[in-house]
């Protein structure tokens, strides 16, 4: 009994540790006073001001758009890559897998500056031909797709390994076209992996700061880079309000999905 209590207590401490800052931010979002040190009474004014703050809303728009697009494109690209890699010879397979893993295992700062060097050099090269190219929304998108790729591949690969290839062959024998066989037989089987790859990519893209910092140029601020530039002038409490809303929204969605055991496995298992 004591042992069980001890375990519970330990778990509680770790969860407290992980969620204490989140709680702090939530509390701050209701703080009437502007500075983060003093409690000035309960207020909803930052929530109201949030919806009047064009800069934050624009950054939110960018963030969500980049997250959706990059996750979707990475999922397409990653799923097709997984299928291709799955059917490769052992040696090529392992080479490809190491390449896929580079953006995940490499340090973010290295990936970020590598992108920056690439894009600026590309811009200089293209300007010789009179084409105008500068870092902005598009380069951020490319960066996010690239670092999302390994997460998709790592989610889809295990599903492919479990796949029974004779089902696909049977479908072909029974007269299905390649496309038909893929969409009707293969895809439903690997769908949980594809979905979790998408969700993971979406989350990663949403939370990214470092790579965006280096490739955003001057055009596209995401929430992360906006927060970083606000750091110097003091974070606006509207930002706390926004994060609280986003966090609670996701929390509710995940709780709902979690309560529904059939979909839950799709969302989390690899």
């Amino acid at each position, binding site marked *: 009994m004591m042992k069980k209590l001890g375990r519970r207590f330990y778990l509680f401490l770790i969860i407290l540790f992980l969620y204490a800052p989140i709680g702090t931010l939530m509390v701050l979002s209701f703080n009437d006073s502007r500075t983060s040190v003093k409690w000035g009474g309960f207020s909803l004014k930052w929530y109201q001001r949030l919806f009047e703050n064009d800069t934050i809303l624009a950054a939110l728009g960018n963030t969500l758009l980049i997250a959706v697009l990059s996750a979707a494109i990475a999922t397409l690209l990653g799923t097709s890559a997984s299928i291709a890699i799955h059917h490769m010879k052992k040696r090529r397979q392992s080479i490809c897998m190491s390449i896929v893993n580079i953006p995940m295992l490499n340090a973010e700062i290295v990936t970020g500056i590598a992108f920056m060097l690439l894009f600026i050099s590309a811009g200089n090269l293209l300007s010789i031909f009179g084409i105008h190219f500068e870092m902005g929304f598009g380069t951020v998108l*490319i960066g996010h797709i690239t670092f999302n790729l390994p997460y998709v591949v790592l989610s889809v690969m295990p599903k492919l390994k479990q796949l029974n290839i004779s089902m696909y062959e049977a479908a072909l024998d029974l007269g299905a076209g390649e*496309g038909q066989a893929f969409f009707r037989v293969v895809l439903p089987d690997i769908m949980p992996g594809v979905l979790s790859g998408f969700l993971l990519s979406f989350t990663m893209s949403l939370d990214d700061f470092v790579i965006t910092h280096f490739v955003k140029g001057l055009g596209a601020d995401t929430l992360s880079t906006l927060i970083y530039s606000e750091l110097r*002038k003091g974070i606006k409490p509207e930002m706390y309000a926004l994060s609280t809303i986003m966090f609670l929204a996701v929390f509710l969605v995940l709780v709902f999905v979690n309560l529904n055991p059939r979909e839950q496995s799709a969302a989390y298992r690899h």
Partner: protein
Amino acid sequence: MKKRILLMCGCLAAVLLTAGCSGSSAGENGEVNVYNWGEYIDEDVIDIFEEETGIKVNYKTFDTNEDMYPIIANGAADWDVVCPSEYMIQKMLDNDLLLEIDFDNVPNLSNIDPIYMNTVKEFDPDASHAVPYLWGTVGILYNETMVDEPITGWDCLWNEKYADNIVMMNNPRDVFAPALISCGYSLNSTDDGELEEAAALLTEQKPLVLKYTTDEVRDMMIGEKAAIGVIYSGEATICKDENENLQYVVPEEGSNVWLDCWVIPTTCKNKENAEKWIDFLCRPDIALKNFEYIYYSIPNSAAIEMIEDEDILNNEALFPDTEVLSRCETFHYLGEEAEEKYNNLWKQVLSE
């Protein structure tokens, strides 16, 4: 399956295309890309400009001269008009990054006090590339209730009484200036021995410093998280408005006086609009409006004449008397080699 591949390649191509074309809708009379310091303009001024001229303003900000420079130098973005400080303008001139301004398009230049155009000549000999925007001094902001005696000189930054109560700026030139002056040297020193002496002084100071930051000084001083902060004069005025215990002083040993000017970089695509922008900001009513919002000293004598509030005219942080200015010095661009020296020594201080 071919279709699927086509689709994929299509996606790839689409992404690559959107990557380059960050198209923005221009105003009826074109657009102008303005790159300015953060919180360095009354945003209403931008709206008025757009309304009056029909030119769309794409406005972005930078945090330090050092952040801004590589963006212009690498051509990472096509800015039409930028607002750096004097030493950075000199560096940009040295590297052929600036266009001459056609002053026929800037008739309001006549409102700028000639004294400041003389200052411009220190770094731009024929004064043809820069139009003064705002200026100020660097000094010490202190909280009367948190220090034992009135602060008059830089020595308080090394006083152990104030350990963990000192906020310093966070870029090499600004942080070295107090140290160099305290040693009795010029803040434009390039001498190895002098710089190393200053670096040793900064290393000695490091344990006393609460934080190295340029922009947070304001909030930290208002929130009374620190007793002493090195700060720009304009920020000091805002701080005093928010917290009456704060006092601003330009140290008696001397300090830095700076001048930020509008310049047109070679990346400029809308030169006439850029000149219109500069001219507009030199208009007395606009300069005044700006001044009343940001509280940095303006070089615009026509606008100063329009100020009625005696308190503001008597504010020593905003309008320092000549005695104060005579002990202040502007930064000069010291060349790449010296710049590297400053950077390396600053890194050494930080890595201790």
